[in-house]
């Protein structure tokens, strides 16, 4: 099977031409064929052409996961433009800020995005294009597909320590390098059905969708609202006969403990690739016992800026295991550990075809995190690791205040900056308390003591995604400090622990 491509729009175009009647997507119990998906893409592309979208232009994709949104992404790519996915559940102010920062003039949106229309207009968006294609005439011109592997394909936003989200610029080649490697390594086949569980603003669906189209396989879409209910995710997995999962451990553990995943044998399931956070060993062991070796389980590591850059195939866990390694670099990728006491420990820096171009319109931050050395561009992840004698890498924490909660990456400084902008707040500090299933739960302390928790949370809802809003906001007249005068995060971590037990 030829899985080599130059352009992210190629896989769907190629498969739709060859097998128009094959199932491309499974959505709420019905199937969408490659031919039908291709027709939707061309209709939306017609609208993009009429809106004047030119190659290289950033185009917002606003809504919740749906076949229409998948088609919109492909339509943008076929115009050699750059897509920027935006979750409709985000506050209007955050969407408007991302749109303005990216210089987006055209937004394709589905129904759930409509409530943000006025914010988009205020952010100087000129054209709003619907994903509805009924009665829309398709594009009459063939897709040129002039972009190449080094050209920008999409921008994914992630939390930023400076107080605003960062747009990570990913090329066609960055995405394809990981997809091509994983399809081969995990031996995906044309009859595979890949569960697409995470929101399209996340990096996991990039693999789910492009691997599907590359193979002529089928993606089983879990609606974003259904994904909030583990039992719904399990229902979709079973009804859609999914064969492969690429998910964050907290979502898998939810399906295990509250979704009834283990009430039946694995059925069609052949693979579990997990990423984004460590999988607690006792729960992973439970999963392995359930699948009795019939499922290929793998731990994939890598921040959005590198796609997945290491892997470890989890065949078994001995009784003394307390962690799972992040493993070995994927093909053509180099990993070094810098700043440690030896070459066997330190910060993870990555070079290779999956490493992103940089941050959108943030040259200084890009220069800080991407460094040139030995003729290569290395991304400094901020993650710490050690390498054992067998060459396996083990995750060893962070060197800054970035944490993961439910698989989402959160810079505590961004949350603190947002709280600091709330009326009446003079100082804010946020700590993350580890939680087995969720990864971390956030707690905030603010001064002065008269600040109301509801006022702060209400203000945050207008600017932050829900997973970044702290579980509790406590107000105090003063915050604890160390002898050197710095805010004492340790004392607040202990106080957060006590608050949870109350």
């Amino acid at each position: 099977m030829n899985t080599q491509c130059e352009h992210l729009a190629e896989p769907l175009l190629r498969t739709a031409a060859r097998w128009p009647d094959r199932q491309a997507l499974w959505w709420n119990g019905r199937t969408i064929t490659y031919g039908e998906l291709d027709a939707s893409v061309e209709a939306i592309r017609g609208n993009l052409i009429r809106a004047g979208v030119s190659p290289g232009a950033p185009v917002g994709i606003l809504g919740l996961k749906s076949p229409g949104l998948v088609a919109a992404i492909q339509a943008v790519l076929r115009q050699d433009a750059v897509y920027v996915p935006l979750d409709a559940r985000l506050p209007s102010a955050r969407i408007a800020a991302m749109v303005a920062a990216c210089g987006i003039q055209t937004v394709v949106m589905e129904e759930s995005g409509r409530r943000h229309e006025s914010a988009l207009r205020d952010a100087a968006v000129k054209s709003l294009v619907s994903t509805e294609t009924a009665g829309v005439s398709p594009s009459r011109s063939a897709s040129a597909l002039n972009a190449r592997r080094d050209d920008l394909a999409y921008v994914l936003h992630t939390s930023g320590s400076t107080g605003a989200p960062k747009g990570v610029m990913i090329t066609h080649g960055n995405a394809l390098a990981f997809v091509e490697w994983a399809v081969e390594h995990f031996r995906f086949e044309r009859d595979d059905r890949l569960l697409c569980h995470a929101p399209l603003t996340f990096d996991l669906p990039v693999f789910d969708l492009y691997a599907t189209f590359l193979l002529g396989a089928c993606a089983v879409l879990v609606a974003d609202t259904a994904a909030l209910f583990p039992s719904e995710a399990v229902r979709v997995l079973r009804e859609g006969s999914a064969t492969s999962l690429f998910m964050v451990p907290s979502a898998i553990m939810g399906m295990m403990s509250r979704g009834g995943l283990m009430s039946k044998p694995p059925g069609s399931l052949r693979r579990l690739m997990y990423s984004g956070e460590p999988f607690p060993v006792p729960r992973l062991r439970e999963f392995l016992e359930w699948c009795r070796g019939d499922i290929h389980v793998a731990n994939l590591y890598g921040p959005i800026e590198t796609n997945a850059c290491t892997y470890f195939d989890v065949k078994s866990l001995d009784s003394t295991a307390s962690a799972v390694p992040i493993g070995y670099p994927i093909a053509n990728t180099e990993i070094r550990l810098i700043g440690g006491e030896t070459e066997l420990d330190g910060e993870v820096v990555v070079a290779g075809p999956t490493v992103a171009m940089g941050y959108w319109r943030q040259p200084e931050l890009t220069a800080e995190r991407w460094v040139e050395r030995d003729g290569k561009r290395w991304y400094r992840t901020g993650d710490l690791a050690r390498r054992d004698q067998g060459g396996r890498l083990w995750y060893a924490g962070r060197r800054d205040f970035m944490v993961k909660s439910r698989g989402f990456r959160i810079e505590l400084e961004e949350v603190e900056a947002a709280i600091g902008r709330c009326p009446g707040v003079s100082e804010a500090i946020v700590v993350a308390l580890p939680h087995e299933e969720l990864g971390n739960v956030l707690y905030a302390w603010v001064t002065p003591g008269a600040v109301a928790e509801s006022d702060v949370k209400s203000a945050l809802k207008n600017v932050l995604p829900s997973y970044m809003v702290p579980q509790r906001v406590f107000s105090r007249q003063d915050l604890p400090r160390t002898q050197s005068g710095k805010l004492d995060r340790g004392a607040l971590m202990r106080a957060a622990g006590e608050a949870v037990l109350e």
Partner: protein
Amino acid sequence: MNVEDAVWSALSRHLIAPLNRDHASTTQLLQEGYLDSLGIVALMFDLEKEFHLKLKPTDVGPADFENFSALVRFVSTRVAV
């Protein structure tokens, strides 16, 4: 307290941000980001306690949390069983 008031009391404790009760029946709680997965679990726990219900995770789905009216309907049906 009637069912509607008790559901509102529980719901408002777990909303990501305060919501005007007058708009609660036309606000899409999940699609507009007022409830997330943590809030859903905590809300189910409170509803079980308040109404002496025993809910299985498979008893609820997105339609039951679509808006405040849907949630009141869901609880009323379960209470009546």
